[in-house]
């Protein structure tokens, strides 16, 4: 049962279906490659799994774990779309919604935002928790790119992209706990004083509406955007095909 006998590839079970995997793949990597959606925000197919958002939590052999950092193994029993796990994910999305200042109707990322799409996917009808209302000033200093920290979910993808791909280390995290926040690499604290460019990889990985390219806000009209057309669960990310164009 734990190998695909036709091709002799090891497999695990995901919600009752056999999923083949390659050595070194984590559960989410194998699942996405095989066309099975597992919700995620901080995971990006082109980056090393990080394990912070916990949206990809699944039950592996009865134990809840982050599927992005759990190595695939032959014969694992992985449960994803079960009420208990979907409840957790819904609560996590609600936590992210109250942690920042998310106001979808006025956000130019609406319809292209993975957090919003996940909220729809998981039937989040309200933020549920009392809003935290943090004070997070916007950084509009850069000529081409706007940073609206109000929507940051601290997935660290821009941090990772700027460090690992662009080799610029434009972004980093400071603070801790609920005061944790994104900072940029300049003495003034302004993006304009860094070597950031709109062509950087870091400018194209944000799953929400923090890193926004100026003067492009509504080039695709509301209603015709990626998640307006198809729900996020039907558009599976892979390296080279991600859902984060900004």
């Amino acid at each position, binding site marked *: 049962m734990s190998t695909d006998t036709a091709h002799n590839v090891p497999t695990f079970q995901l919600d009752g279906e056999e999923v083949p995997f390659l050595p070194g793949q984590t559960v989410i990597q194998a699942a996405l490659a095989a066309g099975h959606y597992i919700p995620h925000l901080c995971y990006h197919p082109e980056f090393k799994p990080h394990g912070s958002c*916990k949206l990809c939590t699944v039950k592996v052999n009865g134990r809840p774990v982050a599927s992005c950092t759990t190595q695939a193994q032959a014969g694992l029993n992985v449960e994803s779309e079960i009420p208990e796990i979907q409840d957790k994910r819904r609560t996590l999305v609600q936590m*992210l919604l*109250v942690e920042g200042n998310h106001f979808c109707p006025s956000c130019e990322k609406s319809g292209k935002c993975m957090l919003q799409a996940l909220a729809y996917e998981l039937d989040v009808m309200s933020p549920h928790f009392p809003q935290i209302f943090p004070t997070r000033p916007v950084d509009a200093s850069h000529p081409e790119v706007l940073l609206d920290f109000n929507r940051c979910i601290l997935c660290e993808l821009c941090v990772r992209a700027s460090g690992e791909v662009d080799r610029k*280390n434009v972004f*980093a*995290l400071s603070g*801790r706990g609920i005061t944790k926040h994104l900072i940029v690499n300049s003495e003034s*604290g302004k993006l304009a004083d860094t070597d950031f460019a709109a062509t950087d990889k870091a400018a194209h990985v944000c799953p929400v509406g923090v890193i926004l390219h100026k003067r492009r806000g509504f080039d695709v009209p509301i209603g015709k955007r990626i998640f307006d057309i198809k729900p996020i669960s039907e558009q599976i990310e892979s390296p080279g095909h991600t859902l984060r164009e900004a």
Partner: protein
Amino acid sequence: MPATAAPDAPTAILARHRHNPTRLVQILRETQEALGWLSPATLAELARGLDLPLARVAGVAGFYSFLHTEPRGRYRVLWSDNITDRMLGNQDLMLDMCRHLWLEPGHVSEDGLVSVDTTSCTGMCDQGPAVLVNYRAVTRMTPARVEQMCELIRKEVPVAQWPAEFFHVDNNIRRRDILLGNELQPGDALRASIARGAAPVVEAASNARSWRETAASVAPGPQLTLDEIKRSNLRGRGGAGFTTGLKWEACRNAAGSGPDAARYVVCNADEGEPGTFKDRVLLTEQADLVFEGMTVAGYVVGARRGLLYLRGEYRYLLDHLEAVLARRRAEHLLGHNILAQPGFDFDIEIHLGAGAYVCGEESALIESLEGKRGVPRNRPPFPVTHGYLNQPTTVNNVETLASAALIAWKGGDWFRAIGTEKSAGTKVLSVSGDCERPGIYEYPFGVRLSQVLADCGAKDVQAVQVSGPSGVCVSSDELERRIGFEDLATAGAFMVFDSSRDMFEVARNFSHFFAHESCGFCTPCRVGTTLLKNCMDKIAAGHGSEYDINEIFKLNHLLQTASHCGLGHTACNPMFDTLQKFKPAYERRLKSLAFEPAFDLDHALAQARQMTGRDDAAAHLATAMEDKQ
């Protein structure tokens, strides 16, 4: 340490640390000691000196509570805010101090002279209320001492010239057993370890290879000592109770990688669990035993370097510990060819933390040792194979290493005969709260809570918080339970509450602690601990209902199952336990068991009142509305 200008400070400090980025936390701490705070220009200079991105340096500085990127006054007074400090009246004393100094808690005085704020437990629970003044520990605060301190601050007397009695810290050892009563002479455990494999060491030396690389049959000393540790059944004293022998064995068997392959021994002295102070006393009174344990660990796993991670609150112990290390070097108990054994090289350096409870988690501690934000790593791989600098590392608690030294000296069977079947040896408890004789009590494992309570003179006990906020709250009908891995595992905290105490306030204090100390890496803990804190504050303000109680249970389930590390897993324990055992303490605060709006209109006007300087009846909503009626 008032900022008497030391403009060359960053340069000299960078040079002393050889511009090594893994020393970043130490460099930041020392630079702040010299300059008072870490300005953007200072951070930029350090970043250039270490060839690190400025944002990375600023991000590390922003992580630790004791590092500040804004001026916090030439005098910074931090009141330890554990529940035991509260029970001793710290809140009134702090407000008293603020009134004397004309300032608000959390704010710097207009002249930049002083700021007063709270901090997490400083480990002085048996002699509180405690404060840190410019990060030096002060105990036994009284109204008179507050007044005296304010006078010294106003006159700008340097902290180094303050009365010595302010800084006096008692050990308060009330019961000694094998650890605190040991008669080991420095080197005894090492000599015993070496003696186990004495003969073949000559052979190892003669073929000019260190025993580290030789087979166990050639140099059996480390292996035989490891066998004793395994036979002793010693388990980790930090709370989790992992078998020390297995940890050391896994580290010893891991090869390490790259050109800098090496193994490391780390002593976890980041004793941050509120209510715990036994490591402070062990390091004060038994530093030799702890260092000897580290050296034994180095001998067994084949490490040349040991690192002791000392919590920033215990900064005052640094000189004492460095002096002990210097003496041990002079006695050939550290350094090259220890006790004339060729190839037995081991030395210890001390790293200071900077106010981050999460660094007590071993992988977060390693991140901090490497000069990074103290965020727990994804595991596996575990530190025993990929730890400090990605090399095999054994991280052990202070008390574990002290016990290991005794085992190396007296043997595993001797140790195993003490305590219980699954919990060999003794446990050092830090007793505080409502009792006549707070302090340090060492018992063989298996001791009943009732015994400890009788010995410390506790009366009319309502509850005991065993192992701190992340541990278990035990009620008065469970006092025959035992300390040990079979029943109540503990890192050592033992806080006693008598029947006059409000267990809701105890839990609320702990909820603030976890929200303050969450590292913020994972969503459930980062947001959940703050939601919990807000929920407890809402109930305390009289706006809670049964709905909020259910929310706490719901958050408890999520944090326990979805958090990244132990901090999140246990952050709801205080609420969960007290709701199970002391629910009336919550219920009497719920105005209506059904529903109460969370939004307080009158409170929402507080800021407007403050801005307009008004506090008359008409400026309050309820009164204004009553007037109209």
